[in-house]
C-alpha cells in the first residue's frame, strides 16, 4: 500500500500509468456523456412545470457537481503537497485548476440561461449563486498565484495553502440552500432519500455526471503529462522519450 503511494509520487511512473489509463477514460467518458446528453436533451420527458427549459439541468448539474468535486480533489492534493511534499500532487493542482474554472463558469452560465425563463432574472445575489461565484474567483486565484511564483517549491506551498483556505467554501455552496433563504431551489438529490425526480430523468443525468468525471480524468491526465514533461525536461527519461518519439 505505502509502496504504491510512493511509486505514484514518481513522475515517470505516473506518466506510464496515465498513458495506459487515458484511452479508457476518454472513450468511456465520451460514450457515457454522449448517451446521457442525447437521452436527456432529446428523449427524457419534459417537466410538468418548466416544460423543456428544465433540460439545461443535464449540462448545469454535471458541470456544477464536477466544479465542486474538482476543488475537493485539489484540496486533498494540497494536503499531500504540504504534508508529504509530493511533487505530483502539485502537478495535479496546477493541471486541474483551469479545468475546474471552466466547469464553474459553465455552471454559472447555464444557470443564468436557465434563470431567465424560469425565475425571471439572469442573476441574483443569493447565497448559492454568490458562493459559486466565489468558487470561480478561488480558481482564478489558484491559477494566478501558481503562475506568479516561479520557484517550483514555494509556488507549490503557496498554492496548496490557498486551495485549503478556499475549501471551506465547498460546504457553504452545498448547504447554502438549506441554511439561508435563497431563490435557488434545494437539492433534488440527497444521499439518504430518493431523488425527487423519476428514473427516466435522473438516469440520463447520472450518465452525464459519470461521463464528465471520466472526461475530466482524461483531461487531467493529459494536462499532468504535459506539466511533467515541462518540469522534468532536463531528466534523462524525458530526453529518451522525446528521442524515441522523434524517430
Amino acid at each position, binding site marked *: 500500500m505505502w509502496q504504491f503511494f510512493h511509486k505514484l509520487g514518481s513522475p515517470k511512473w505516473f506518466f506510464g500509468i496515465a498513458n495506459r489509463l487515458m484511452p479508457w477514460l476518454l472513450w468511456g467518458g465520451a460514450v457515457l456523456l454522449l448517451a446521457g446528453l442525447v437521452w436527456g436533451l432529446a428523449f427524457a*420527458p*419534459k*417537466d*410538468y*412545470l*418548466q416544460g423543456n427549459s*428544465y433540460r439545461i*439541468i443535464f449540462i448545469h448539474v454535471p458541470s456544477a457537481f464536477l466544479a465542486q468535486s474538482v476543488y475537493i480533489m485539489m484540496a486533498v492534493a494540497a*494536503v499531500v503537497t*504540504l*504534508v*508529504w511534499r509530493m511533487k505530483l500532487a502539485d502537478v495535479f493542482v496546477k493541471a486541474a485548476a483551469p479545468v475546474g474554472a471552466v466547469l464553474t463558469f459553465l455552471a454559472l452560465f447555464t444557470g443564468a440561461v436557465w434563470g431567465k*425563463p*424560469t*425565475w*425571471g*432574472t439572469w442573476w*441574483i*445575489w*443569493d*447565497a448559492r449563486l454568490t458562493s459559486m461565484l466565489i468558487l470561480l474567483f478561488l480558481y482564478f486565484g489558484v491559477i494566478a498565484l501558481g503562475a506568479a511564483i516561479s520557484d517550483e517549491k514555494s509556488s507549490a506551498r503557496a498554492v496548496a*495553502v490557498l486551495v*485549503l*483556505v478556499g*475549501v*471551506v467554501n465547498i460546504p*457553504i455552496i452545498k448547504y447554502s440552500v438549506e*441554511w*439561508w*433563504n*435563497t*431563490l435557488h*431551489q*434545494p*437539492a*433534488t438529490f440527497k444521499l439518504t432519500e430518493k431523488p*425527487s*425526480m*423519476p428514473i*427516466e*430523468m435522473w438516469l440520463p443525468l447520472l450518465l452525464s455526471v459519470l461521463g464528465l468525471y471520466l472526461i475530466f480524468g482524461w483531461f487531467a491526465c493529459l494536462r499532468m503529462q504535459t506539466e511533467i514533461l515541462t518540469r522534468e525536461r532536463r531528466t534523462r527519461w524525458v530526453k529518451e522519450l522525446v528521442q524515441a518519439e522523434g524517430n
Partner: protein
Amino acid sequence: MHPIRRKRLTIVLFLLAGIAVAVGLTTYALRQNINLFYDPSQIAAGEAPLDVRIRAGGMVEEGSVLRDSESLKVEFKVTDFNSSVLVEYTGILPDLFAEGQGVVAMGRMTDNGRFVADQVLAKHDENYMPPEVAEALERASAAKHKAGDSSSADTAY
C-alpha cells in the same frame, strides 16, 4: 508516520479548523444579510423594516390572485402557511408565476401593511416530473376529494 509529517499534518488540520470557525462565525453574524428574503412570518412579527427596499418570499396563496382588468396591476397574498402578506405589483409576471408556486418579490412595506413590489421572481422547487405524472397525481387527489365529498353526502341523506 514520520514525526515531521505528523507535525505538518497537525498544522494543516489546525489551519483548516481555524478557517472553518472564522468563516462559520462570520456567516452566522451576517445571516440576516445573506438571507435573500423575509418570509411572511418575519414580516408579520415586524422584523422587516418599513419603507426600505427588501425582498419578501413565500408561496402564492391559492385563490388570492386578483388581476385588474384595465391594467397590468395584480394583487396576491404570499404565505408561509403561518402568516401571509398582501403584495401589490404592476408589470409582467414570470411564466412560472401561479397559485401555489413560490415567489420572491422585491419592493417596500408600506405602513398600511401592504407590500408594494417592483419586481416579482418565480421560485421553483426541487421536484421534477413528466406532465403525465403530474396530471395523474392531480386526478388521484381530485378523486380522493370527490370520494370524501360523496361519503359525506351519503351520511347527509
